[in-house]
């Protein structure tokens, strides 16, 4: 890869470069449009970095093998799209319950079912609630090719920091878009590694937390620190202990608190022209590009419009989004789905005066700036 250089790149290529820069040395996937290029690039590039690519027999095997590699101490990633991400959900639950760092790139395509390969943002709720049970998850949404790189690095770092599965919610538009980007030099990329044990092996407990939000140190396999990487409800050593209500509650609250107590460190919200705005466009991913244009167009027409871009989609910081919207009279939520984040914005504004409007497209085409502008101005004099 041409790190440290200015170049024309596709979003999926930038994502692959981000994985290498972030220290991912194990990548497993199953082919699917529009995500396949990520694996193709990594199959070529990883061996030079001492890393390994494997094309698995299906998506359950792909993410399942990533979790094995991660437990052994190697940063791991997979990439797929809606139908494949659906098959991976059992593994998302395993990563959440067993606290295994892993990154899942979803280059979204239209569903349900195999749908079509056109761009969409229809898997936003799947990213949050796709697997069973209350579980922690982080999702980041890139708006540009450069962000496909940057947010892949951030996704890996967050997964390591909090021992959780992290989604990169890319889509067919940004994944296949080509832009000129300047990649940083490898040595300039800030890396985060999971906490590892510093105690004696006989004092080690793989799932011990002293406060609910503590991320327990994670031992690599083969280092003499034994614990059970455990899919079921478990005690501090990973030994299954079903039927103990207090311990079950403590475990689930721990999994939640790892993220919910640290929203400020995790949730990245970008604010544009919001200081005096009385109309706020809330957007994420590629749709945020059109939203930015719409806000600039609205300003040129004398509207006090601004953009709140959700770089981190999950966890959704309801309180902070509400504070940012403040006393704005109108909120516009453009999405390439039928209104998935719209519901979260409604929750965030329930005690506020803002009227929350949707702009939705599900025809495989991008939301245009004009459509957003029309909604910004709808009914206004």
């Amino acid at each position, binding site marked *: 890869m041409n790190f440290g250089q200015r170049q024309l790149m596709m979003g999926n290529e930038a994502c692959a470069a981000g994985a290498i820069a972030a220290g991912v040395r194990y990548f497993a996937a199953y082919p699917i449009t529009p995500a396949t290029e990520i694996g193709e690039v990594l199959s070529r590039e990883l061996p030079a970095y001492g890393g390994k690519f494997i094309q698995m*027999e299906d998506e359950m*095997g792909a993410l399942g093998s990533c979790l*094995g590699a*991660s*437990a*052994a101490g190697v940063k791991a990633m997979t990439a797929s799209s809606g139908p494949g991400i659906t098959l991976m959900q059992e593994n998302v639950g395993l990563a959440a319950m067993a606290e295994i760092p892993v990154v899942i790139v979803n280059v979204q395509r239209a569903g349900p079912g195999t749908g079509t390969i056109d761009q969409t943002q229809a898997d936003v709720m799947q990213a949050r609630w796709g697997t069973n049970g209350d579980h922690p998850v982080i999702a980041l949404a890139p708006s540009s090719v450069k962000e496909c790189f940057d947010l892949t690095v951030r996704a890996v770092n967050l997964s390591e920091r909090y021992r959780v599965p992290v989604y990169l919610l890319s889509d067919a538009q940004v994944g296949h878009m080509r832009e000129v980007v300047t990649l940083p030099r490898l040595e300039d990329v800030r890396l985060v590694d999971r906490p590892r044990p510093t105690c004696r092996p006989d004092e080690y407990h793989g799932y011990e937390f002293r406060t609910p939000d503590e991320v327990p140190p994670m031992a690599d396999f083969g280092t003499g620190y*034994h614990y059970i990487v455990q899919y079921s409800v478990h005690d501090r050593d*990973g030994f299954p202990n079903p039927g103990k209500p207090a311990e079950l509650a403590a475990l689930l609250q721990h999994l939640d608190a790892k993220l919910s107590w640290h929203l400020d460190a995790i949730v990245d919200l970008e604010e544009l022209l919001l200081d005096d705005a009385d109309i706020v466009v809330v957007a994420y991913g590629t749709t945020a590009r059109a939203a930015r244009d719409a806000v600039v167009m609205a300003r040129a027409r004398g509207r006090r419009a601004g953009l709140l871009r959700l770089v981190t989609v999950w966890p959704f910081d309801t309180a902070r989004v509400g504070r940012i919207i403040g006393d704005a009279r109108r909120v516009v939520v453009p999405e390439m789905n039928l209104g998935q984040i719209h519901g979260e914005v409604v929750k965030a504004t329930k005690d506020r005066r803002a009227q929350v409007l949707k702009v939705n497209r599900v025809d495989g085409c991008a939301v245009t700036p004009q459509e957003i502008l029309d909604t910004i101005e709808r009914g206004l004099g």
Partner: protein
Amino acid sequence: MSVKPLSRLLDTYVYAERTPTTWCPGCGIGIVLQSMIRAIDDLGLDTNRIAVVSGVGCAAHATSYLKFDAFHGLHGRVPAHATGIKLAKPELTVLCLLGDGDGLAIGGNQFIHAARRNIDLTAILFNNFTYGRTGGQFSPTTPHGAWAQTAPFGMMERNFDVCELSRAAGATYVARSIAYNGNLTTRLIRNAIKHKGFSVVEVLLQCTEIYGRYNKQGDGAAMLTWQREHAVTPGKAAGLSPEQLEGRFVIGELHRSEAPEFCEEYDRLIARVQGKAR
């Protein structure tokens, strides 16, 4: 080889404080596990360099009692988890503890593709002919005509021959044993671990409380005796007609071949690519 007392093995390999185990009285899983532990002990393997991987089912619980690195993962995905572990750390000995449902029904795809790659994993398939954990539904190895909770009129489907399947899928070491013959099981697992490549040891064992009870096969001792009476060695089997072999099973080493091992191939690829880069 002298047989070490069980108490010494337990101290080294088993978390005694986690017993009693989840298994029923008379169950064969513990017997097979003892054979596995003896095989590891015979080989003098470092317990810090062994990973055991399991999914869901009765045998899967074994990982919880063993003093190794343990991965108690998804139903059926054991060979996939193990593939990730082994590729990440090829120096580890990785054992897959599979059941007949876990390994061959929900995990059939993972199983055959791990065999096809010939990655250096040792799969021990605990074949008790049933889904014991969920109360006795039929599995891919339930014999034709046997009673199961979901085969109340007798098993209608044909069953897998685990060893034929493994060999056809590309496993380079395939063997079968019975819980009754602990020494044979130990020897086969020892050879399987030593073998470089994907190796499968199927062990037929008794599920006394579910499969045995529903099929009126008597207690644990009776079921063990049945295993002994129906097992034949490869040498003896060679002299028997297909009719004479009906209802019997061949135990021992059934297949062994040499083929490139996946992790070694990958390491060679890395060396080649990095050599070019320099």
